[in-house]
């Protein structure tokens, strides 16, 4: 509860500070202070200290898993602000509003990680989506940004409609909005099955699973790169938090019927994401497709639905956010976002190149990086179920494909000749990136450091 209320208040504070403060650089610091506060109270809630006592009528339920997800989302936002706060200021004239929107998104994240009621799911997803539509369009004079924003909005509205229809059907058959349905009998009625399917499709839209992923590359490409970085990390993992809660409490009991559906979606997602990413010229688009592919891997947690999977999803979210934010922080500053643009980066910026390499290795899932254990947990979760071994084999073959495009960046940086005009960066930026790399390696050697906080 702490997170939801405080982040909403902080959003409003941020908005008003835009009226009273005219120093652009101040907003970033206010946002950082706000995020630190948010992180603090969220951790406090994790240990049982509540600031507010609100009767949610059982529509929200706060538990360890959701709170950990909040911590990751807030920490990722904090890291994002520290790394790329300067670049947020460059997007347009409304820096305070951008940060306000980001706080509202965090409010939505707080809701979708703890809902037990379908109405709350709907509200949470909308609170996340609407600021995201606006952030996509913040580069007002850029046609691509406008197009992306409109596209995102139309697609998002469409999927929201589908979600509402699904919820309606479920309400119609069960007479309740609660996610968990007591005394379910099998086989379920067609209407209920239809409702569940529509809900599944709409959430697949939100986390961009194939075949509902077509908006992702265009939106990620068109949005200002700073906000792409935010959407590809925080917004995406929030979608997964919502998804796993839903599937766990509703679909989980249905067993093999949903397994097949999820398996098909996973294969399609991995295939589309990875194979299309191979052919990209722009690193930003490649990362958009790679985020689809990574979503395919995260789906394994939803497929397996065991403790290994849940623990893995937390680790995966953390590893994915760290690596993606690190890469984007450098990419934002690049003049030329194509693969050729990275040629020879190791000569002019050896430190940044090394950090980028570690981030890319982590995304590819090479041992000694956090990404390896993230993938490991996902695969282990499925192998533990004892079925669908072929799915795991397909997944690792696609993971090998993913190495292909991640290493293309490494090749460009280290083995190709070229001149990069990289803007001067502050020492703090460098230290932060080194810290990111250090955490990635630390989690890659001792993944327990993160997961020992969890006992489900």
């Amino acid at each position: 509860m702490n997170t939801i209320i405080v982040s909403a208040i902080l959003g409003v504070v941020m908005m008003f500070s835009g009226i009273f403060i005219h120093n652009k650089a101040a907003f970033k610091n206010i946002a950082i202070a706000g995020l630190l506060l948010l992180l603090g109270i969220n951790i406090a809630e994790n240990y049982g200290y509540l600031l507010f006592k609100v009767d949610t009528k059982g529509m929200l339920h706060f538990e360890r898993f959701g709170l950990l997800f909040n911590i990751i989302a807030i920490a990722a936002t904090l890291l994002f602000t520290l790394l790329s706060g300067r670049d947020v200021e460059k997007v347009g004239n409304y820096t305070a509003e951008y940060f306000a929107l980001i706080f509202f998104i965090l409010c939505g994240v707080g809701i979708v990680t703890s809902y037990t009621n379908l109405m709350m799911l709907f509200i949470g997803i909308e609170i996340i989506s609407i600021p995201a539509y606006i952030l996509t369009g913040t580069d007002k004079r850029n046609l691509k940004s406008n197009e992306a924003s409109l596209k995102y909005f139309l697609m998002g509205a469409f999927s929201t409609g589908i979600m509402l229809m699904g919820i309606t059907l479920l309400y119609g058959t069960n007479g309740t909005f609660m996610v968990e349905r007591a005394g379910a009998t099998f086989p379920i009625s067609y209407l209920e099955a239809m409702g569940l399917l529509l809900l599944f499709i709409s959430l697949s839209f939100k986390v961009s699973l194939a075949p509902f992923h077509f908006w992702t590359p265009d939106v990620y490409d068109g949005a200002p790169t700073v906000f792409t970085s935010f959407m590809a990390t925080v917004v995406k993992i929030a979608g997964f938090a919502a998804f796993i809660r839903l599937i766990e409490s509703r679909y989980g009991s249905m067993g093999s019927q949903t397994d097949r559906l999820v398996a098909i979606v996973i294969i399609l997602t991995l295939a589309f994401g990875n194979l299309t990413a191979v052919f990209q010229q722009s690193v930003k688009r490649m990362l958009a497709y790679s985020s689809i592919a990574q979503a395919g891997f995260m789906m394994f947690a939803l497929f397996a639905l065991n403790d290994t999977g849940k623990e893995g999803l937390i680790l995966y979210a953390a590893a994915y956010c760290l690596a993606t934010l690190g890469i984007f922080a450098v990419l934002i500053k690049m003049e030329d976002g194509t693969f050729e643009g990275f040629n020879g980066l190791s000569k002019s910026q050896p430190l940044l190149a090394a950090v980028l390499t570690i981030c890319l290795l982590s995304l590819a899932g090479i041992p000694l990086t956090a990404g390896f254990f993230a993938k490991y947990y996902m695969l282990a979760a499925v192998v533990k179920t004892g079925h669908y071994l072929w799915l795991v084999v397909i997944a690792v073959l696609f993971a090998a494909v993913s190495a292909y495009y991640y290493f293309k960046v490494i090749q460009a940086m280290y083995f190709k000749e070229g001149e990069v005009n990289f803007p001067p960066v502050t020492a703090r930026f460098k230290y932060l990136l080194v810290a990111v790399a250090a955490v990635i390696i630390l989690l890659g050697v001792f993944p327990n450091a993160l997961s020992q906080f969890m006992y489900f």
Partner: protein
Amino acid sequence: MIPVLLILVPLVCGLITFFIKEEKTAKLWSLTGSVITLLIALIGVTTMKGSNLLTYDASWIPTLGTRFTVGLDGMGKILTLLTAVAFPIIFGATYQNKYASPNAFYGLMLLSQAGLMGVFLSMDMLLFYFFWEFALIPVYFLCSKWGGEKRIAVTWKFFIYTFAGSLLMLVGILYLYTLTPDQSFAIASVHNLSLTSSQELFIFWTLFIAFAIKMPVFPFHTWQPDTYEQSPTAVTMVLSGVMVKMGVFAVLRWLLPVVPNASLRMADVVIIISIIGMIYASLIAIKQDDIKRLIAYSSIAHIGLMSAAMFANNATATQGVMLQMFSHGINVIGLWIVADVIEQQLGTRKFSELGGLAQKAPALAILFVVMSLANIALPLTNSFIGEFMMFNGLFQYNYWMAGIAGISIILAAVYTLWMIQKIFYGEVRGAVSGAMEVTTNTKLMLVILVVLVVVFGVYPKPLINITNDNPAKIVAQLK
């Protein structure tokens, strides 16, 4: 404690090397580091079995059931010794070579040594996987950065190939893990499983493909000649001298004892593809016009024999494989050193542009001829005894297969002698006329190798003693 030091010393030395800006210091430092590793390995080899010094066990990730368990047994001893011998010799022989950013080059070399040591020492399957990948990454950077013209594309193929294999292996390892009664990766747990035959087959193929790509066995060998040709020679020595032994070693440690029934069932398939690979690679080697490619194909042929002998279900053959892993490592490094000398001095590797080098560099010629004879496994050279044992075992398995495999001995003699003739005898050709005798340190390294070749050729008993108890154990598992 010794196993930990064997991993830690190269690792720490390697990390420090990155920060040494001066070329000479970096070279000297990495050479010193590798010599220290060699001394530790020698202590390890001479330490009696059962000593506490040879094992180390620490908690790593308890929730996953994996521990940091390392240990030296006979097979581990012989391969860590090979790794430890190889690196000082490689550093010494290529001491004159100039590299751009030498600190990164030597640092990565030592990191790959640490990875290799880890592979040979791990007694926990997830730890093994960790080091397996850890050894690969530095080599990827070494080949792509310091290699020949086509290095990027070639190394790329190599990397994707082996990475895909490793991931398949990961699936196999995970599956094994879920089948162990105590949910652990420890060697004792995975060696004592009783699995159904379909489970065994699944695990067999996931692991075998990974190992086969690394060795490489036909038809997974296509990355190898290009990579050997394009890599800087020092790295090629690591690759063919030590790294391919990872695959052979992995089969002996993590495949045959883990899935014995599937291994026996698939033995015919593996032996037949290995023999096809041997003959095929030998025939291609005869046709080569490039020293590096010839040695690369010859290496495929030799590995093919090892892979066939491993599956012959015979203790003699298995013993032969262990000896041959060491001998082949020594011999092939010697051949690469000469190839490197020729390339550095004369600027060409083509036989068509070489000839009569013996008149200009007689000492080099003698040393090279000894290494080459060892490559054909002539009696009194180190590989004779290993190859003899392997063929002996293959004959007991199936004499038709052994007979066909035997053709490769003749073919090996054909291409090796042909190579000597083309390079060292005949008229002095244009490129060779300016040749000089090799530098003292290269000569010294070659002399050390030749001494090893002859000593272990005449008296292989110490090597056999080291690995004495492994083959019987492996074969007993297969029964």
